[in-house]
């Protein structure tokens, strides 16, 4: 049962989302980025916030999705090796139909393969706990970038140019709109999925794993199974997000665009923590705020943006580890449906 207030909120947001490229037509690329960032933050939250497995490695799936989409899109119609060999010079041109077929199949592959990989390595990696898991996934992400930078068929160090948007479509706005609506569709899909998870038993199991994995196991929950499924869900959406970004940017570099642990890999953690781990709306708000902050300030502090980013990480982590939603929750607990016993509260104050 959806409440009327929620219905108004969601339909309002969807209308805003659909109207956004027409209202702010100069910012279509930024809006696409925003959608992708929200998706990344939400999927990270599923992993780090709900399951308690703080990962730096979701960038692995993002980068994989990017390479897979582009490779499939090219490889379906032309020899891949020759394409990357040619570099910037286009010896092959996709027709309109080929382009869209390619990207469709590519996105499908980029969703399934990372999820399968997450399932395959999940059993080994998810047995690690806490900081070992964090460092291990950090290693995975960086190793993937370094290895991708050495593989010839996907462009090695010189990068991989993704197929350009078909030239037969004369509408100049078409490319921006296409990628925006693609990312919006992904965002809506992710949101609906995560919301469904939030109302399900699966979320309770993930929370049980986060709060005390040993106890959860003792209660008869097959924790490993659920951990792997949780990670696969993350990987699925991260892969598609990567595929869309690859098409949008138009150029894939192994360590600076695809397996970009220094930017995207950190952003997704930061956004989820900024908004509030373990909440449905936290990552959405966190990602939106972060994106506005980034786009607003990035150009003003040119050259100093990474310093600002580092300081921001330190400040958020030390002073707001619960994030915005956590802060709001502490301030207005009634609005989160928490009942507070005044007597109990006073007793606690006296105890302190």
């Amino acid at each position, binding site marked *: 049962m959806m409440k009327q207030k929620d219905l108004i909120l969601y339909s309002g947001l969807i209308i805003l989302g659909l109207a956004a490229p027409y209202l702010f037509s100069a910012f279509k690329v930024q809006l696409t980025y925003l959608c992708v960032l929200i998706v990344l933050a939400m999927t990270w939250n599923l992993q780090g916030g709900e399951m308690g497995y703080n990962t730096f490695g979701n960038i692995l799936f993002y980068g994989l999705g990017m390479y897979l989409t582009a490779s499939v899109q090219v490889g379906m119609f032309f020899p891949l090796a020759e394409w990357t060999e040619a570099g910037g010079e286009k010896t092959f041109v996709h027709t309109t139909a080929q382009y869209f077929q390619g990207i469709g199949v590519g996105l499908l592959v980029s969703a399934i393969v990372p999820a399968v990989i997450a399932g395959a390595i999940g059993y080994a990696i998810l047995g690690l706990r806490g900081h070992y898991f964090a460092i*291990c996934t950090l290693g995975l992400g*960086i190793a993937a970038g370094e290895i991708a930078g050495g593989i010839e068929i996907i462009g090695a160090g010189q990068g991989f140019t993704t197929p350009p948007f078909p030239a037969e479509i004369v509408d100049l706005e078409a490319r921006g709109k296409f990628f925006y609506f693609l990312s919006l569709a992904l965002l809506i899909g992710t949101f609906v999925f995560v919301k469904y998870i939030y109302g399900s038993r699966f979320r309770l199991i993930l929370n049980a794993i986060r709060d005390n994995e040993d106890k959860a196991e003792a209660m008869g929950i097959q924790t490993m199974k659920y951990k792997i499924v949780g990670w696969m869900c993350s990987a699925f959406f991260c892969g598609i997000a990567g595929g869309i970004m690859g098409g949008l940017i138009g150029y894939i570099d192994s360590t600076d665009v695809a397996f970009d642990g220094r930017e995207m890999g950190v952003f997704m953690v930061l956004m989820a923590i900024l908004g509030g781990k373990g909440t449905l709306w936290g990552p959405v708000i966190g990602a939106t705020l972060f994106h506005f902050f980034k786009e607003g300030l990035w150009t003003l502090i040119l050259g100093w943006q990474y310093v600002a980013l580092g300081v921001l990480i330190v400040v958020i982590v*030390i002073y707001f580890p619960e994030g915005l939603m956590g802060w709001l929750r502490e301030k207005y607990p009634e609005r989160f449906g928490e009942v507070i016993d005044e007597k109990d509260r006073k007793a606690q104050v006296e105890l302190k």
Partner: protein
Amino acid sequence: MDFLIFKAPILMVQASMDGILIGILFALIAYGMALQWGVMNIINIAQGDLVILGGYIAYTIYLWGIHPAWGVIISPIIMFFVGWALYKLVINKVVDRDLFISILATFGIAIVMQQLMNFIFGADVVVAQSEYGTTMLFDNSVTLPNSKIFSAFISVLYAVALVIYMKKSRLGRAIRATAQNARAAKILGVDTEKVYAATFGINAALCGIAGALISITLTLHPYVGLPYTVRSFMIVIVAGLGNLPAVAVSGMGLGLFEEFADYILGTEFRIGAVFLLLVLILVYRRFKLSRKREYLK
């Protein structure tokens, strides 16, 4: 197998020598990491960036016309105060908290340090020339730069000095007491806050020494800190906290692995191999422990 290294066995000697000498350097960095991990229970992602900063201090001295080898004395002194300041600014707020918080906070520090080093020292790959020459072995078929021998010797010297200091001195005893039980140490009059600051300072100083040695043996670049962090982390998890001989041995083992990976896979996969080895070691230990229904803590 048609790898060059198997065709020419002399290359194996070369790789082994290089690996062991570099591995001793890695062990020195890992010792610092084990120290702060054991005492303060934090994992410092900025460890490698402290190393690089130490290297740049030695490089600056070199640019001023002083021999870079003096860096092994000057750089740790400066780095001690850098470490102390970092502790007072950031680290003291993460000591008692979740390890993930310390990982993220030091990750932030690492990003800031990388960028500041990029501003100050530029994004070029630099190396300080020690002009120590090279030693030729086995009819000139194995070449060893004397700077590498020098760096291994200095590392061992400092490590031994530190071990003696930790055993004998008052501060060393206070540090060990805090590592064993911070609360009890506090009750018995140890100023744990000061001990933590000193520990982080000593760790930074060790990084400074290692950095100064790296500036003459390898190369410096603002963004190559993370591999050093990962190497030291790897050495610590293989060797365990507070087991110095094991740290030295696994450091050398890592050095050997890297040199052989370099010859067999090619230089472009060297860093990738290091990170992959980290993943493999963690997964191996996870499966070994899960037989006893335990996990890495």
